[in-house]
C-alpha cells in the first residue's frame, strides 16, 4: 500500500472537530431526554390514555416510523418556512431528532406497558394507589426495565443518525469531517478520525444507558 497517511491537520482543525463533537453530544442529550419523554406520553395515550387521542398519536407514530429521517429533517428545515415557521438549523435538528425518537420510543415503551400482566393494575389499585401512582410505580418502571435494552439501542441509533443534520449545515461531527475533507482533501484520514470518535461516543453512550438502567431499576431479574 503506497498511500501516505497524513494526520498533521488534526492539530490545526481540532477546534472544528471539538465543536462538531459538542453539537452531536448536545443533539443526542436533548433528543434522548425529550424524545423518551414524548415517547412515554404517547405510549401511555395509546395503551391507557383517552381513546379519542389514540388515532392522532397512531397517525404521528406511523408517519414518522415510515419515512426517512432525512426527509423529516428537510421538511422541517426547508419546507416549514413556506408555512411561515422558520427554524435555525440547530432548532430544526433538535426538533427532528425529538420527533423521530418520540415515535420509535412510543412503540418500544408501549410494548413494555402492554406486557404488564393485568393483575398488576388491579393489585396497585387495591393497595390504595391512585391511577397515576399505579402507572408510575407499578406499570411504567417495570415496563421500562423490560424494554431498556431495546430503548438504549434506539437512542444510540438516533445518535448515529444525527449525522444526517450535516445536510442542513448544522455543524455536527459529520459536518466537521466533511468540512475538513474539503479543505485538506484527506478523505481517508478525516473520515477515519470521525469514525473513531463516533465509535467512542456510541460505546460511551451504551455504557451510560446501561448504568442508568442499573440505578433506575433496582429490581432486576436474577441472572
Amino acid at each position, binding site marked *: 500500500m503506497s498511500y501516505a497517511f497524513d494526520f498533521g491537520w488534526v492539530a490545526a482543525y481540532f477546534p472544528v472537530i471539538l465543536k462538531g463533537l459538542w453539537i452531536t453530544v448536545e443533539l443526542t442529550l436533548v433528543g434522548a431526554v425529550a424524545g423518551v419523554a414524548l415517547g412515554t406520553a404517547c405510549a401511555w395515550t395509546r395503551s391507557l390514555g383517552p381513546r379519542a387521542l389514540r388515532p392522532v398519536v397512531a397517525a404521528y407514530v406511523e408517519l414518522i416510523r415510515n419515512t426517512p429521517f432525512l426527509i423529516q429533517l*428537510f421538511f422541517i*428545515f*426547508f*419546507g416549514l*418556512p*413556506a408555512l411561515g415557521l*422558520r427554524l435555525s*438549523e440547530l432548532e430544526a435538528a433538535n426538533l427532528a431528532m425529538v420527533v423521530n425518537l418520540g415515535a420509535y420510543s412510543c412503540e418500544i415503551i408501549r410494548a413494555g406497558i402492554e406486557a404488564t400482566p393485568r393483575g398488576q393494575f388491579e393489585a396497585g389499585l387495591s393497595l390504595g394507589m391512585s391511577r397515576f401512582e399505579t402507572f408510575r410505580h407499578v406499570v411504567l418502571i417495570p415496563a421500562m426495565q423490560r424494554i431498556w435494552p431495546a430503548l438504549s439501542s434506539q437512542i444510540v441509533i438516533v445518535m448515529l443518525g444525527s449525522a444526517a443534520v*450535516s*445536510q*442542513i*449545515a448544522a455543524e455536527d461531527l459529520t*459536518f466537521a469531517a*466533511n*468540512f475538513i475533507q*474539503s*479543505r485538506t482533501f484527506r478523505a481517508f484520514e478525516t473520515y477515519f478520525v470521525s469514525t473513531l470518535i463516533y465509535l467512542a461516543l456510541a460505546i460511551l453512550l451504551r455504557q451510560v444507558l446501561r448504568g442508568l438502567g442499573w440505578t433506575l431499576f433496582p429490581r432486576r431479574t436474577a441472572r
Partner: protein
Amino acid sequence: MNRRYFLSLAAGLVAAAGLVQAPDLARADALADITARGTLRVAVPQDFPPFGSVGADMTPQGYDIDVAQLLADKLGVRLELTPVTSANRIPYLQTDKVDLVISSLGKNAEREAVIDFSDAYAPFYNGIFAPAEVAVAAIEDLKGHSVGVTRGSVEDLEISKLVGDDVEMKRYEDNNGTISSFLSGQVDVIATGNVVAAAILARNPPKRPELKFLIKNSPCYIGMNKEEPALKAKVNEIIAAAKADGSLDAISEKWLGYTLPKDL
C-alpha cells in the same frame, strides 16, 4: 519491364502526386475560407445549460448557440454546429475541424499559449447574490448576514479567505442545498456562480437572486486559432456591435435571466 509494370508505376505516381499537397500559402486567412465556403463551423457545448444543451426535439440550444448564430448571420454564412466536450474543444480547433470555439471557454495562460481569444461575450463569475431588499455592496457588508454556499466550491474557498467569524457561513453539501436554503429563506445571501443563479431565476421564484458584488470573474471568450488577425478582428467587431445595439444583452437576458454586467 512490361506494360503492366509501367501502368502500375504510373498509377502509383499519380496517387503519390495526389497525396502530396502544395503548401498552403494562404493558410493565415480563415476568415476568407469561411466566406468562400459559405459556412461557419462552430464548436458548442451540449451538456452545460444554459450555455449549451439539447432541447426536447434534440436540437442544440443555449447562450453559445445563439451567439454562434449571431456571428454567422453577421458574416452572411450558414452555421454548422459541432458538439464538443471541455476536453476536446481545443483539439477540434487546432485540427481545423471547427473555425471557432464558443463553449463557455475561459481564458488562462496554458490556453493562451496555443489558441487566441476574442473579447469576452458572456459573463461567468462567482459572486454574492441576494434579493433586492438585502443591501450588501461589499465583503464588509456581509457582517450580521447568513451566507449560504456549497461546501468546497470555488466561492466557498474564496469567501472563507476573505471573511472573519462575524459572518455566519452555512455550508451545504451541494448546489441543491444552497438553492433550497436561499428559496426557503434560511439564509439571506448566497455565494454562488451566475449559472446557478440563472437556474434559480429560471424557476421564477418569489425571491430573486440579484448580483450584489463579484468574488471572481472569469468571463467566456470565443476561441480561434493563432495567427488569424482578420478573423479575430471581425469577431471582435461583431461582438462589440452586438454589445452596443443590445442584441447580446437580449441573449444574456434570455438564457441567464439578467443583462450583461457593465464591465464585460
